[in-house]
């Protein structure tokens, strides 16, 4: 009888330890939004505009404008033209624009890119994993990354078309000027 009791206690203790372990794992793996001045969360993802993948680390040494968008997002349509114009303006200065297609059907995203004549690279974020790392809660959102891979400027929630000053400050911060 004592053996049965002891076995029961061990099983109960193991179950509690297991649940506690799960809780600790969950707490330690929760994504916290990155801080301005801190490193930009890394990612590598499939490209939507062409084949292959794009790794953010491969852009180290270049200022980056990171724009989260989706084809089903109304304000994203409104800012598409502004972003494309800015890309054409700043690419000669080495600035890279990267689109991150958030929770979207890839076919819809490709039609969006073609319709708005977007020529900068766009990566897929169907699961929302990249957006989670950046603490994105809704699209569009835009981040600025400097040559050292740090987040700079203020990240823009909502369309950049209505926040052009903040957008220009962000691009300049990324350029380090």
């Amino acid at each position, binding site marked *: 009888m004592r053996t049965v009791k002891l076995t*029961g206690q061990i099983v109960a203790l193991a179950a509690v330890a297991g649940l506690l372990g799960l809780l600790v794992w969950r707490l330690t793996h929760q994504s916290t939004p990155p801080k301005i001045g801190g490193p930009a969360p890394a990612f590598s993802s499939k490209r939507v505009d062409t084949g292959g993948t794009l790794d953010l680390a491969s852009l180290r040494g270049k200022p980056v404008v990171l724009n989260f968008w989706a084809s*089903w997002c109304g304000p994203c349509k409104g800012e598409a033209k502004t972003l494309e114009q800015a890309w054409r303006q700043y690419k000669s200065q080495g600035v890279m624009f990267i689109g991150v297609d958030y*929770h979207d059907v890839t076919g819809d995203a490709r039609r969006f890119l073609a319709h708005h004549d977007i020529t900068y690279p766009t990566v897929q974020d169907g699961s929302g994993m990249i957006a989670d790392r950046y603490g994105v809660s809704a699209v569009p959102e835009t981040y600025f990354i400097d040559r050292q891979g740090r987040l700079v400027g203020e990240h823009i929630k909502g369309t950049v078309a209505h926040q052009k000053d903040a957008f220009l400050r962000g691009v300049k911060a990324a350029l380090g000027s």
Partner: protein
Amino acid sequence: MILRGVAVLAAALVLAGPAAACVNPRTSLNALEGEIMCPTCHTTLDQSDSAAAHRIEVFIQHRIDACATESQIKADLVANFGAGILAAPPRKGFDLLAWWLPLGGVILGAVAVAFGVWRWSRARGPDEPPPASGLDAETERRLDELLARLD
């Protein structure tokens, strides 16, 4: 005017093409809506009115019109959005644990309760006298007197 009519007819034929290709659809949007999550609102598609959910419904309808099966459509969605798009985990591989663990927990709990009841009934015994009140004889006598007076 004639050219415009021809253009509309051509567009209608192009749009009707995929639907006409599948005479007997293998599944329906109604059947799938409760099994697919809206990634932005974390509810199933049938409970969501978001733009993202609507686009996914359109995608599913196009695949149904192309005669895709339920499993093919789910595979396409998982490839695009990740496994989190499914309301329930697949019943294979590691995900099978999500189905069996709760059942195992219920069975284990039932066994533990049954064992506890069995032990409790054995420890008590059938002819055990009722537990003593803990009062001494004098106090019990006085309590009886008081109760008798109340009657």
